[in-house]
């Protein structure tokens, strides 16, 4: 076991209601690294994100996932979050009546409590918010509204990355953060993510399209098809995929079979 890695997935099998979706994923992410997982629709990308974050309803049938040396799969979702695992949602959830600032402050203080740090009071928290919100070019008024309520699609995605900036996770999993974004929003979101890159931290960027990887440049690219990582390479693999499509890999796989 590589104890210096942040995330170490070995032969992970998972499914929903008896249907196998992930069929043996192995993936190791080290500190400071940015990994991209790409794949066509239905390949298991979002399942991978959900299983890592601990969403209910998925059965883990084989394999293991270790996060900072501990067994990730036995932790509750909130324990994973408090240990520094962050998921930027593909579809951020609206919570009517719950003020965004209050929500994020509660989240941050839960995480700080877990790490034995003092909780931030309203003034300290506001200072942090003002600093981080600039990264995402977000309107401060959004923070006075209920969580994600009345936000545009782009605002929701930017809000996810803003939350990531405030919570400062060790491992950030970005689930199709580019979907539904226009080119300007994509640039802002990507710049935000890039600024959060740090030596001790890692990012797992899940996407269908290569275009996100023009902005967030990965160290490694993995291609996910039918629940397996069928190819891994450097950032040039993404460009190749963009050019030749996923069919190219499926054809090669069929030939090899």
């Amino acid at each position, binding site marked *: 076991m590589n104890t210096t890695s942040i995330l170490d997935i070995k032969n992970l099998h998972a499914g929903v209601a008896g249907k196998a979706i992930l069929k043996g994923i192995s993936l190791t992410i080290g500190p400071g690294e940015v990994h991209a997982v790409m794949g066509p629709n239905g390949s298991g990308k979002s399942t991978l994100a959900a299983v890592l*974050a*601990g*969403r*209910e*309803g998925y059965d883990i049938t084989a394999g293991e996932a270790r996060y900072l040396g501990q067994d990730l799969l036995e932790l*509750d*979702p*909130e324990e*994973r*979050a*408090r240990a520094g695992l*962050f*998921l930027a*949602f593909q579809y*951020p*959830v*609206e*919570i*009517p*009546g*719950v*003020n965004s600032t209050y*929500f*994020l402050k*509660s*989240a*941050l203080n*839960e*995480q700080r409590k*877990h790490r034995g740090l003092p909780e931030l009071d309203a003034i300290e928290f506001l200072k942090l918010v003002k600093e981080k919100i600039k990264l995402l070019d977000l309107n401060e008024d959004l923070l006075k509204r*209920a969580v994600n309520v009345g936000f545009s699609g782009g605002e929701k995605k930017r809000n996810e990355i803003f*939350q990531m900036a405030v*919570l400062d996770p060790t491992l950030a999993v970005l689930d199709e953060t580019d979907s539904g974004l226009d080119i300007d929003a994509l640039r802002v979101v990507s710049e935000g993510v890039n600024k959060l890159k740090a030596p001790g931290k890692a990012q797992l960027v899940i996407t269908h399209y290569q275009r996100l990887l023009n902005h967030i440049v990965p160290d490694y690219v993995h291609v996910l098809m039918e629940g397996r990582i069928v190819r891994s390479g450097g950032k040039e693999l993404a460009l190749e995929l963009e050019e030749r499509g996923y069919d190219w890999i499926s054809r090669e796989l069929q030939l090899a079979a």
Partner: protein
Amino acid sequence: MSTALSTIEEFVNTEYKYGFVSDIESDTFPPGLNEDVVRAISAKKQEPEFLCEWRLRAYRHWLTMTEPKWPKAYYPPIDYQGISYYAAPKPKAQLASLDEVDPELRRTFEKLGISLDEQKRLAGVAVDAVMDSVSVATTFQKDLEKHGVIFCSFSEAVRKHPELVEKYLGSVVPLTDNYFAALNSAVFSDGSFCYVPKGVRCPMELSTYFRINAKNTGQFERTLIIAEEGAYVSYLEGCTAPMRDENQLHAAVVELVALDNAEIKYSTVQNWYPGDAHGRGGIYNFVTKRGVCKGRRSKISWTQVETGSAITWKYPSCILLGEDSVGEFYSVALTNHYQQADTGTKMIHVGKNTRSTIVSKGISAGHGQNSYRGLVAIRKSATGARNFSQCDSLLIGQQCGAHTFPYIEVKNTSAQIEHEATTSKIGEDQIFYCNQRGISKQDAVNMIVNGFCKEVFKELPMEFAVEAQKLLGVSLEGSVG
């Protein structure tokens, strides 16, 4: 790691923390109801002739009525002859001061967080405590008297201010009004009375704490609040009861009268024993609450947070007679386990340019059934009347229900009426989203529920808003694991 469904089922394991029984000797009538019982209650309270007669008229009318069947609530028939209609903690001798209150009784109220003497000194809230059917102590009376405010038990008001009682009793809720109001009029044993004279702004919050203790008894209290011209009063009632296997009947009547430019703010935090996780026991809370805005520019505002009772049947209402008068209703009703609530309001617009606001928040969990039932009536005379209604329902889990029955009757074409309604579920998605940010399931549910109720909580006096939030938290405890 538990699944969302099983965590929601854990809801059922909530403990009711006020379910203790106090060992207090009580003076209780044997079960049963007839004219002699009505006379005996009146005699026990040394009431004047007019009141005894009034009770008897109510009783005779009640005999001709049948129990309403229209509420969306199901329960076995109530045996009205199986209930004791009078229970009073002994000793019932007149108390000269709080020090004479039975120590066990004081401990009871202390357990409930109502320390009569502490409260008296610290909180600046005047409290009238009603145990079973009798008022046991009223604090701050002397201070209030300086301002001319009368705040006392109903019995004391009958003795000391019979002219006010005779003038206003039944003036808002007539003894013929409905089945439970008629029953209450016949057998009510005590309650609170408040009179705020012309131009006086009541200097402190007034509060009544109702506690049912004795077994097999009904609680029938009567509250009457009168705000004279330009007066203001804010009044809060709280209610709890021990855990018992059988159902107990609570049928109260509250009447409010606001004259010119007067304002009455009436807040309720109701936490009667709701029954156990299987729907055994609990209070039947069949209550008639109504206020009349008699004067011009008068205002009556009802705020209620209802988390208790097996069945709740109540519609705090406003009759807007005076021109430019205002009626408000803010409600949070929570049903969990097998609780049923059929609650809402009636806003009757009679005067010109009268305005009303209704904000109702229903939360259903477990097998709870929550119904909003409301009437907005604009009479022919009510030119320029306006109403805004908002009814929101929140569902937690798969087995609960939310229902809305809004009635609107408009007889004047200049009226403006708005009605908004939403139904939402606390979704697994929302809980997971909170979890993923580090917030526990329980905190997530509390956060979502409190967010849902925010508009109502902000209408409560501050210290009670905090209490109400905590109460919702307790009632939802164990809802998710």
